[in-house]
Structure formats: structure tokens, C-alpha cells
């Protein structure tokens, strides 16, 4: 009990002075930021890891396959026994087909939802619809893939008899449904951040709500809306499971939407589920395709960043 008596006699200032003198505490205060900095650097290391992994293995790939054959070749036949061909264009064509259909589905519906939610809907309606959009955004892509294969494709076949089981149309539509919530919620954010004074001004001049939405709010929120579309395109390009299940595995360099295709992501999945051994050209080819995919999405993300930075209207 002697120590408690002693500390009771000490003044607060003395106690603080004693605490400050302790070596352990000082050491802790100094080392914590360093530890946290190291933890924060792991995200940077991850990026470096991705870039270096892709570059190293891609370089290995290009020692076996000519760079120009890869970039300009219109035939992707890696599994051919006689003469394997590695022209990336058919895979890019497959990816772009699916992305284009997805954009055609998602942009009108996404923007219309965003306009409705930000300009017309009452608070109650918004409270119901926004969580539903969140659920839609949270559905795993494997579930969407199953939906595309077992529901959307048979449904479309009733209208388009020549549609194959694996095609570009069905996964394209479903990828569109998948990215729709992203466009809707990001665009709605952009629209709701347009100040009400501008809306009120237009309404006071006699504009209808539609005119306010189309001629005032949309132009003012355009940078945010464009950025949301570009980000959604980036998601569509990188989407894997929907196209793997419903798109097929026939790389083709054309504009046919009704026949089996293969996207860059679906090729990576096909090789991964097969038994291409470590060190084969096919093994390295998934890194070359992955690198191409990475560059595509990087470009899109950078574009979205530039659009939202440069064209932002400040109020």
C-alpha cells in the first residue's frame, strides 16, 4: 500500500512528468506511425506485385511468340497441335462485344433510374429503391452467370432462333444488368450534388421538371455521369464469370453476336480450369492476356479520373 500512498501525495504535474519520463511509452508513440506506414505500403506493394508479375511473365511469353503476331494476329488458337496461333484481336473483339451490349443495356436504364431517383422520386420511394439497387450490386457474378446461361439465353432463343447456347448477346445483357446499379448510383450522386438553387432558378422561370433535369441538371452533372459510365465500362471489361459461363470458348474476330465467343477474362479461366502445365507457352499466355486486360481497365480508370477532374463544374 506504500505506493498508493506515495502516488496520492504526488501532484498531477509530477505524475505527468513521471509518465513522460517512461521510456516504453515514448518508444511506442514513435514506432506506431512507422508500423502503420508499413501496413499502408502493402497496398502499394500489391500494385507493384501485380505490375511486375504481369510484366515478367509477359516478357517470358514474348520470347516465344512475336509481339506483332500477338498484337495484330486475328486468330487465337493456342491449343492447336500443329501451329498454335496467339493473335489477341479475337479475344479483344469478344470482350468489346460483350461490353458494347452491356453499355447499350445499362446506360439508358441506369441514367433513367438516376434521373428518376434524384429529380422525381419522393424520399419514401428512394428509401425503397436504393437498397434494391444495392442488393443488385451485391449479387455475386457467378449467380449472374448462371442466370444468363439458364434463363436469359433460352428466353432469347425464343425470339432469335439462330442464337447458339453460348453467345455474346446473353452475357452482354446480363453484364449490363450487373453494371446498371453502378451507373445509377454514381450518376445519382453526381446529380444530387448539383445545388438546389440552380434547380429552383430554372423552375421559377417556368421550366418543367423534365426540362430542369435534361437542360440544367444533366449538363451540370455531366462529368460525374461520364465518369460513372467509364467506370462501369471498366467493370464490364474485367467481368469474368458471366462471360465464362454464358459466352463460350470460341475466340472469333467478327461482329456476330449470336455465336459463341471468348473474352480475355474467359480465356484466363479456361486455361486455369484446364491442365496447362507450368512453364508452357499457354501458361505464359494467360499473363500476356491478363496484362492486356489490366492495361484496358487502367486506361478506363485513368479516363474516368481525368473526366471527373477536368470537367467538373464547381459551385
Amino acid at each position, binding site marked *: 500500500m506504500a505506493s498508493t500512498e506515495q502516488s496520492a501525495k504526488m501532484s498531477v504535474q509530477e505524475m505527468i512528468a513521471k509518465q513522460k519520463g517512461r521510456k516504453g511509452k515514448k518508444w511506442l508513440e514513435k514506432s506506431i506511425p512507422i508500423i502503420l506506414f508499413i501496413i499502408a505500403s502493402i497496398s502499394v506493394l500489391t500494385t507493384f506485385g501485380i505490375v511486375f508479375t504481369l510484366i515478367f511473365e509477359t516478357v517470358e511469353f514474348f520470347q516465344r511468340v512475336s509481339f506483332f503476331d500477338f498484337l495484330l494476329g486475328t486468330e487465337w488458337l493456342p491449343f492447336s497441335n500443329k501451329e498454335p496461333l496467339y493473335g489477341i484481336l479475337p479475344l479483344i473483339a469478344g470482350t468489346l462485344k460483350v461490353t458494347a451490349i452491356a453499355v447499350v443495356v445499362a446506360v439508358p436504364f441506369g441514367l433513367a433510374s438516376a434521373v428518376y431517383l434524384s429529380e422525381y422520386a419522393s424520399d419514401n420511394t428512394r428509401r425503397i429503391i436504393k437498397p434494391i439497387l444495392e442488393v443488385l450490386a451485391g449479387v455475386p457474378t*457467378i449467380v449472374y452467370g448462371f442466370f444468363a446461361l439458364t434463363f436469359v439465353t433460352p428466353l432469347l432463343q425464343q425470339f432469335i432462333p439462330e442464337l447458339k447456347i453460348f453467345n455474346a448477346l446473353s452475357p452482354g445483357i446480363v453484364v449490363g444488368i450487373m453494371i446498371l446499379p453502378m451507373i445509377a448510383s454514381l450518376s445519382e450522386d453526381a446529380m444530387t450534388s448539383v445545388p438546389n438553387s440552380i434547380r429552383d432558378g430554372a423552375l421559377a422561370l417556368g421550366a418543367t421538371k423534365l426540362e430542369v433535369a435534361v437542360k440544367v441538371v444533366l449538363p451540370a452533372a455531366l462529368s460525374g455521369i461520364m465518369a460513372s459510365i467509364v467506370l462501369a465500362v471498366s467493370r464490364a471489361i474485367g467481368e469474368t464469370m458471366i462471360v465464362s459461363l454464358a459466352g463460350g470458348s470460341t475466340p472469333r474476330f467478327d461482329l456476330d453476336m449470336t455465336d459463341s465467343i471468348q473474352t480475355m477474362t474467359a480465356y484466363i479461366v479456361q486455361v486455369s480450369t484446364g491442365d496447362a502445365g507450368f512453364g508452357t507457352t499457354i501458361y505464359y499466355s494467360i499473363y500476356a492476356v491478363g496484362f492486356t486486360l489490366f492495361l484496358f481497365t487502367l486506361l478506363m480508370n485513368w479516363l474516368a479520373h481525368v473526366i471527373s477532374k477536368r470537367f467538373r463544374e464547381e459551385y
Partner: protein
Amino acid sequence: MRHINHGSVVKRMGIRMVLNKTFKAIFFIATLFALLALGILFYRIISQGIGFISIDFFMNFGSRIPENAGIKAALVGSLWMMAVIAPVSLLLGVGSAIYLEEYAKKNKVNDFIRMNIANLAGVPSVVFGLLGLTIFVRALSLGNSILAAGFTMSLLILPVIIVASQEAIRAVPKELREASYGMGATKWQTIAKVVLPSAIPGILTGGILALSRAIGETAPLVVIGIPVIIQFLPDNLLSQFTALPMQIFDWAKRPQEAFQSVAAAGIIVLMMFLLIMNSIAVIIRNKFQKRY
């Protein structure tokens, strides 16, 4: 100045009002499209798969015969994977968020870290799979184990957790910190005993949502080479395993009609799993989040 022609304004008025009403209806119907899609999706999957849900479905391992196929290995595998992802991603995510919000000064290095996190969020999950395959499966020779998959998934959801934690930490009012400093607390004491406790509900909500994304993610597992037919339960972190989305992917790919129903049943289990996690997140958000 030209005077407004009253007649023409009145004449245009009618059509402008009609247009407004029509487009309001069009926008509303377009919004319902998303709702309809979700409704059909759930209806289809439940009606197709509910017949397969039984005690046996949870007790059986995968099988070549649809009637005997079960989800036991996948369900347990997903739980094991979650046990790796949750601590790893929360430790890394919250640590990074504290650094960025509390310690990081405005300089080039920290700006680079911030920009990098935003970029990382946009990298497709299949590319994370390639990273996991090279670094964890091959370079660190973890094989296609729970640990390798868990690490890969942790890195995949790291940006999401960092951003959610940053928001939660930022929402803690300045007054609380100042009061703590005023009482003589050091910076770390303030963070550990004042800032973090009041930010934890927000961090957990964001964390659980990110975790549920990792549980539903398939592509990285495929690339890492997670097998689908596993006839045993994992017993340590370096065991081989399979996970719910992997199992569903395998079933959905099979040509036999009956496996479609098994896949739908698997999806029901996965969706229930996610529903439970999301409900927990919502409960935490509503119950513990303080408003200042």
C-alpha cells in the same frame, strides 16, 4: 427588347406538360426494370433449387451423381477462407486507414499511396488471381491452399476496407480528439482509446460488406487453381479446399440438366450466407452507429 408572345407560350405549355408526365412515367418504368430483373433472378433460382435443399445436401460431399451431390466441403471451405480473410484484411485495412487519416502528412509519398488505393480498386478480380498464383501459390509455395486463397482475397478487398475505415475514422468528431488531448493523452492513446472505439461500428459494417464480396468472388479462386471435387474437410490452413462459388461454377458448367438444379441449390446457400452477413452489417450500422 422583344416581348414574349403569350399565345405561343400557352400553345407550347400543353405539350411541355405532357412531355414531363410521359418522361416521368418512362423514368419510373426504367427504374422498375432493375427491380424486375432482381425479382426474376431470385424467383428463378429459388424455384429451381429449393427442391434440392435438404439435410443431405448439407451433409454430402461433391459427387458425379446429381442426387448425391452436396455442399459440405464448399461451405466449410468458405468458412475457413473467411477465417483468414477477416483478420488479415481488417488488420491491413484499418492500419492503412489510421495511417492515412491520422498520421499521413500531405506529401508526395502519401498522395501516391492514396492514388494507388483508388487504382487498385479498379483492377479486375481475375488479375488478382494471377497475382495470387504467382506470389502466393508459386513463389511462397503455399500451393492452392486456404492460406493462398485467403491472402489473395484479402488483397482484393483491401481497397474497399481502407476506404470504408477512412470514412468511419473521418466521421469521429474533432471535439472528441481535442478533449482527449486536453486530458493529456498522447496521439496513440487518443487513437486507440477514443477514435477507434467510436469508429468501430462503421469499420465493421464496411468490413462485413467487403467480406461478403470476397465470399461471392469466383474468378481469383479459379485462377489460383482451387479444386472442385474435394472429399474431405480441411484441417489446417495449408489444406486443399473448395469454396461455395467454385462449387457452383463447376455444377453450372456440367451439361446434365439435373446439375442445373444442384447449382441453383448451391446459389441459394451462397445467397443465404451473404444475406446473413449483410443483415449483421445492417444491424451493427443501425444499433451502434452514434450520431454526433
